[in-house]
């Protein structure tokens, strides 16, 4: 594939590498941390994410009911063209199958976190592995792996995910997670590789090498940890995209087929759209939740990136 292909994606990655793999990483990090705490954007983003995490983790304690239980008092009044609203014990009323909508929204945080985190993590792990291999070994391995990422970057993200889902022989929650994850593999791979290459020539690595530290140890102890900052920033941003892509897949009918699962993207893309006229809340609430969480992660990711920008130290 062409060299200049998707130059911008690459350039963004390079920028991030440059910002995070500077020598004197520790003081830079401390600096960045301080700047982060002073940045209102970061605080807003962080608060949103914290709230989201708390709800996700303590969902069983917060939610009034089991998210997949069907309640007779709700199903009694349920028909295909009318869905009961708030009643005693069910503050947000029913969903299209007579389940407690409030509980589903709350458990939705957990499932959404699950999908987002896993999609990000899987993409990150594979990407980091490939990137580290390329960066550490170099030579033809590097060449091959980078051509591979080029091909993957050639397809726009959602399109690649759609294609992967279509090409999967079965549709499960994992199909969606993996499709969204694979989209991010090349980004992480390039990121890590670049960062490691930048460090290969840096003072502390040269020093370690001069001291006779084994190559494996240099990679694991010195190069990898220093590269992770960039990876974490990217992961924060990736999370937002992952949950948006999962929602889009659901909307296209290619998402998680198990509608028992309370996941915001699924709730919005399937029930929300189908029953929009009957009960618009079924769409508004998950949509709002997705926007907020995506916003939170974007805000935090961008402010970390900004905080790490050496220009801002001037």
């Amino acid at each position: 594939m062409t060299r200049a292909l998707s130059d911008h994606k690459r350039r963004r990655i390079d920028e991030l590498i440059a910002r995070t793999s500077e020598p004197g990483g520790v003081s830079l990090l401390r600096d960045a941390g301080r700047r982060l705490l002073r940045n209102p954007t970061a605080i807003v983003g962080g608060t949103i994410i914290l709230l989201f995490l708390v709800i996700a983790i303590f969902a069983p304690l917060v939610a009034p009911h089991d998210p997949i239980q069907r309640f007779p008092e709700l199903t009694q009044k349920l028909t295909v063209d009318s869905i009961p609203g708030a009643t005693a014990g069910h503050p947000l009323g029913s969903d299209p199958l007579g389940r407690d909508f409030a509980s589903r929204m709350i458990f939705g945080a957990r499932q959404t976190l699950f999908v987002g985190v896993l999609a990000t993590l899987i993409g990150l792990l594979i990407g980091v592995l490939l990137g580290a291999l390329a960066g550490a070994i170099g030579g033809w391995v590097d060449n091959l792996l980078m051509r591979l990422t080029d091909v993957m970057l050639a397809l726009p993200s959602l399109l690649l995910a759609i294609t992967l889902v279509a090409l999967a022989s079965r549709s499960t929650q994992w199909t969606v997670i993996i499709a969204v994850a694979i989209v991010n593999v090349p980004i992480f791979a390039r990121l890590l590789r670049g960062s490691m290459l930048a460090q290969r020539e840096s003072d502390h690595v040269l020093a370690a090498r001069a001291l006779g530290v084994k190559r494996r140890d240099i990679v694991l102890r010195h190069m990898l940890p220093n590269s992770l900052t960039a990876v974490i920033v990217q992961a924060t941003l990736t999370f937002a995209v992952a949950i948006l892509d999962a929602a889009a897949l659901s909307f296209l009918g290619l998402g998680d087929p198990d509608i028992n699962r309370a996941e915001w993207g699924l709730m919005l893309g399937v029930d929300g759209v189908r029953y929009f006229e009957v009960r618009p809340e079924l769409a508004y609430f998950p949509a709002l939740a997705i926007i907020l969480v995506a916003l939170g992660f974007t805000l935090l990711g961008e402010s970390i990136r900004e905080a790490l920008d050496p220009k801002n130290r001037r």
Partner: protein
Amino acid sequence: MRASGKGLRSALAAGTIAVLTIGAAGCAESDRDNGGGEGSASGGTFIFAGAGDPKNFDPIFNDDGESFRPIRQMYDTLITHKPGTAELTGGLAESWENDASGKVWTFKLRQGVKFHDGSPLDAAAVCANFDRWFNMKGEAAQSQMIYYQDVFGGFAGSKDAVYDNCKAQDASTAVVTMTRYKGAFPGAFTLTAFSIASPTAMKQYDSDTVTQNGDSFSYSAFANEHPTGTGAFTFGGWNKATGEITLNKNADYWGDKAKVDKMIIKIIKDENTRKQELRAGTVQAIDYPAPADRKALADEGYKVLDRPAFNILYLGINQKNPKLKDLRVRQAIAYALNRAQLVQTKGPGGAAVADEFLPNTVLGYAQDVQKYEYNVDKAKQLLSEAGATGLTLNFYYPTEVTRPYMPNPQEIFTVLANDLQAAGIKVNGVPRPWNGGFKDDVQQFGKQDLHILGWTGDYNDPGNFVGTFFGRGKVEFGDQAMTEMFDAIGKADATVDQAAKKTAFEQVNRDLAAKWLPAVPIWHAPPALATTKNVEGLVPSPLTAEEFNTVSVTK
């Protein structure tokens, strides 16, 4: 609201025109408003929103409703249905007769009927159609004659072929001889796939040329550009860029001439968009409004027309699993399902719990079959009697699909699985894309223990329902020798005498419910149509076989 909206809309349209004509001399005269009904001629235009692309317009090579919708307007069949029912009435044949052996069919054709190309419809033309189907050459063409293969068993040279010959006794009498009696007739003569086409046009436009190209086929000019039948509308064209099929009134139609001058079938795949177009007034009728939107549309004054139910959704049970070979386990499954609640909560308007695998308008429907009222305790008791407590079953359900009998497979699965769990049966849900594994896994390989599937009837015959599912060994239900069932259905289907056939099928239905229970019938769910207030004369057909010549659009 609407009036102000219209004002704004024309202001906006005017604005865009102004933008366009900057720099250009003279302003274009515009308000060729959209929407039909206001054409200059008497009848105006009727715009109907269909749900999918047709394949082509040669009846014999098609097997789906979206292709049949335009085909049905352009062609006629020998026998047809009384509007709004599944009862037979004369089509191109004024009357028909079956001899005592059940093998010879004599059709008395209507006089003076002409194809759109002016050639006469006579017995020779009818026989030319039968002979064309039977003698079709090439695997490509044959493989696309799905209804023909199903009903007529095979082609020239095949020992399974049902068709023998067709003779033109005189200009208006066609005699079709079969090799054996088949219960599907005369009902199957109403199938749109067996519409009579103009032999002249077919010859001229090379109708039998079907060529394979890659993973699919190309069809002839006849099928794509020159479909020629006797129907109330003639072919105007198919604009694929805008998804519009235009049909023009056939002024020489033998029956009730179309009330509108032009009809456009606009293809809109998304049900939500179809509804919105109806509200915007840009189409006058839509097919398959979402069940959830029925009430809102009706409240706003749109006409929601329910088709009489002529379909069935069932829960298939695969007896390859030894546990499921036990009748008590299958009965337990039937008792465990709260079908009344499913109909109430998820059934489209007019849906009803099914106790048999055919609607009650079909011959052979028995009034006294064993019913399985929702009863969890009974289910649990049967399971423990059968020693099948702690049963785990793989429940296959399709994704990426909606069918008239199954508007939302995922929801239906979720509800049914929930019921089964409540009775102590563990359910392992296995979703598969409709064309990407579901049909393969269920109907080819029989990987499932349970699955949901259904059927829309083609014509009024019990064989078309019960026979299709249970008349022969199918992996779908465990390809076991359920010989007693196959024999009983085969015998009932082969009964020439109608009264005896009725009795035989009633017994089949009783046994299906009480003795065999190869599946649990779930519901009959009629698909609806919706039209604007000013559409008159649209008669919903249980077979989704509406003809639009009776439709008029008032101002």
